């Protein structure tokens, strides 16, 4: 099924969870913010979110800025 990760289309297996997507992409959960369909998902809840077709995920972090 198709999901959108950081603005790009990706194809993943049915039933994949959000933490599995993170592992697949080699992100380090401790340092990133995970936004699933415009909602911030806490680290402890990642395994409970099952991907659906056309879901949008943003992996974000705070960086230096003025």
């Amino acid at each position, binding site marked *: 099924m198709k999901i959108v990760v950081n603005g790009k289309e990706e194809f993943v297996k049915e039933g994949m969870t959000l933490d599995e997507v993170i592992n697949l992409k080699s992100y380090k959960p401790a340092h990133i913010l995970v936004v699933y369909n415009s909602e911030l998902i806490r680290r402890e809840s990642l395994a409970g979110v099952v991907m659906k077709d056309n879901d949008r995920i943003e992996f974000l972090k*705070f960086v*230096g800025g*003025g």
Partner: protein
Amino acid sequence: MKDALKIGGQEINSRLFLGTGKFSCNRLIPEVVEAAGANVVTIALRRVDPEYEEENIAAYVPGNCILMPNTSGARDAGEAVRIARLARAAGCGDWVKIEIITDNRYLLPDNYETVKATEILASEGFVVLPYMSPDLMVAKRLAEAGAAAVMPLGAPIGSNRGLRTREMIRILIEEITLPIIVDAGLGRPSEAAEAMEMGAAAVLVNTAIATAGDPVAMARAFGLAVEAGRLAYLAGPGETQEFARASSPLTGFLRDQE
């Protein structure tokens, strides 16, 4: 009587706000914050690239500082609002600097979209500090929209060109009751001092400190300059004169009688 800066219901001890971009090494940031004496520190929100090992900038900001995420990257009010909501949900608190830019050459902000974003975010309980091009009517709209302060630029971001917009900022200070915080373009402590002498409530400095030869020393210099400028403003500078007015008496000179 204490000279407190109050924004969003909070008393801010330092009138030097600090940006965290462009530092050669994030490990400098805690020392820079301390040297500057800053209480308000800005950060930005970006997508993560898993190919690069990136640090979490928030870990370098002392815990007693107010984090002010900016909405840099936003091209319109909708994008700015989205970034602000995400930052708050991530634990940044209610403060937000609205930064909406589509001009890639001078990075001048879009004042109209900034007013729209201010209205939405203020209604959601954010403490909104909008970054803007100094324009009196826009500043009035921002105040009506619920901004907690107004942040006019002194010169383009990162240019170190100083208070190029000083006359417009002077008008804002005279006409707008909200705190006026000069943000962007200040390149030297003397320019920060000048802004404070004019009556600015605070200044926000990033590039001039981050890219200095010694950022910690420069942060201290800016901190002292902001303090000096504020003291001078409160002391009431004397009027300027067209001609000279002697400082020593004009009688009793030690000279031979003619």
